[in-house]
């Protein structure tokens, strides 16, 4: 399978095929051929059917393999209540019959299972304003493959490709997410362009050192994030940096946001002895924050 533009690692789509988890009502509102990449009918998984049980168990294992070591595996009820019923899951996987043997052991794939095995997933749920989505889980086995010395399996860039195709599949026009200042996931998120900041310090989140970030979704941004070199995104100049451990700076930035100033993360953070996140101040007349502000203000 190929996309109508180049991506950083086209090999991914030689190895993997797309799948979607959504209820029948939800799937009718999705683009099941994002950028022309068809989701085969047998890879459209209905979470309300018993026959989906093995696949959904494997999906849960993917989450555990990806986040388990960091203590963030998602309980199955969260998958069901906060992903599968209200929204959708998009990902890439490989038929069990052709899955690499070591991977098969990781996933504990049942011998009699001949369906698809998920190797990446992106979860998002709709917000109240039409076209606005909140993404809460990006999982990719690519880091695990590197960690386990499976160098012959080249899935570099799997996370970015998965998120790009997922947002196209969901029909997102504006996207929001939350992540921590120190998270390496910011590297992936800024590939989609400058990230508007809705919060810089977030006590409502259990980890207050969380940012709430978002961007208007365009095909150009999705293509750029997936590695289409022909697409260049405009990024504002950096005005200052925030140290990922400097809580006082986060408070200060949050206070400025609450007072009506607008900021974005224009580019990737610098990870060294400290983590430094670039910030750009946006013009006062900068468009507001769709989904998080009243419609009239958008």
């Amino acid at each position, binding site marked *: 399978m190929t996309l109508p533009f180049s991506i950083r690692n086209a090999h991914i789509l030689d190895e993997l095929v797309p799948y979607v988890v959504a209820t029948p009502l939800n799937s009718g*509102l999705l683009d099941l051929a994002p950028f022309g990449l068809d989701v085969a009918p047998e890879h459209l998984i209905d979470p309300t059917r018993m026959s989906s049980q093995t696949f959904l168990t494997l999906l849960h294992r993917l989450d555990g393999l990806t986040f388990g070591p960091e203590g963030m595996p998602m309980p199955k009820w*969260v998958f069901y209540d906060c992903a599968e019923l209200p929204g959708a899951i998009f990902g890439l996987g490989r038929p069990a019959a052709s899955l690499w043997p070591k991977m098969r052991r990781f996933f504990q794939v049942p011998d009699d299972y001949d369906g698809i095995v998920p190797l990446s997933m992106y979860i998002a*749920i709709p917000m*109240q304003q039409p076209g606005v989505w909140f993404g809460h889980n990006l999982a990719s086995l690519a880091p695990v493959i590197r960690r386990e010395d499976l160098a012959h399996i080249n899935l570099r860039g799997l996370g970015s490709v998965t998120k790009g195709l997922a947002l196209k599949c969901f029909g997102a026009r504006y996207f929001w997410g939350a992540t921590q200042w120190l998270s390496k996931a910011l590297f992936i998120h800024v590939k989609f362009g400058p990230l508007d900041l809705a919060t810089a310090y977030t006590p409502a989140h259990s980890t207050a050192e969380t940012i709430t970030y978002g961007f208007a979704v365009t095909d150009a941004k999705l293509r750029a994030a997936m590695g289409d070199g022909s697409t260049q995104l405009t990024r504002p100049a950096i005005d200052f940096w925030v140290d990922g451990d400097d809580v006082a700076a986060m408070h200060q930035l949050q206070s400025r946001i*609450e007072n009506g100033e607008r900021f974005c993360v224009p580019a990737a953070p610098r990870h060294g002895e400290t983590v430094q996140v670039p910030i750009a101040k946006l013009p006062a007349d900068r468009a507001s924050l769709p989904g998080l502000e009243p419609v009239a203000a958008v």
Partner: protein
Amino acid sequence: MLLNYAPILDVCEPFLIAHPGIRDALNIAPAGVAIPPENILDPLKQQHVELYKQLRNLDQLTFGPFGMQMPSWVFYDCAVIPGAFFGLAMRASKLEPWALEALRLPEGYTGLVPVSQFIAIPMLGGFESGGACGHWLMYSAESINQVSPGMAPAGLLKLTLALGLRVFPVARLYGTTQWRSHKLSTYVDMGPFELVTAYTPAHSLPRTLSFRLDVEETHLLTLLAGPRTNPHARPPNDWVDPDDVDALVQLQMAIESGERVQVVGPPVHYGSRVRVPLHRCTDAGESRS
């Protein structure tokens, strides 16, 4: 109808956690019970830190025993940003000393102490008509009385549910609960609801049911009145034992084959046996004999 529940509002105050982008879609005076402006919180602002701690505490107390405590990030990512959080709270000064101790409130705290919660988030299918979302998933409804009866007034869960359903613009309500949950009786007081799943391996607890209900004003009135038999319910033509996994699987298979199954009444207990009344009919509407 609310008169019977008035004592609750003598000691509890409604509160709402909703960012500005969703507030216009919500009713901040459900059934005429105005949510005080100071009790409408913006999760995008750095305030109300202690209240958020208390909310996590309430969730831990009510869902922890079922192994379903909300992971810490879920409150933000899957509740107050995509949807909103409604609840009733008591002032710390109105709680008895044993309750203050049980809730591990910091000494001198005088703010709101949440005693019930109702969380709803939009469902993608609710945008089918192209307009505002009318389908909402209620994925948490709970009251402190469930784990500590008497800490808050009786009837708290029903009132929270009835008001919560008026806060959100719910035309079709989706929800999940466990077959043996005490809340099944409360939910069925809203009216007979249709099963989306009867046995749910996708959930942490497979003996979970998923349901949908088209919400009407009369449903909310019957919820508060709690009649022995809901006037909208058809007579049962089958009963299911919620402890019989095989029976639940059979029911699930029937739903997947196109049969429509409604829960039409509260569970009935005979000693250690429980039976839930159902009305089953074909997709064409013919009742199962």
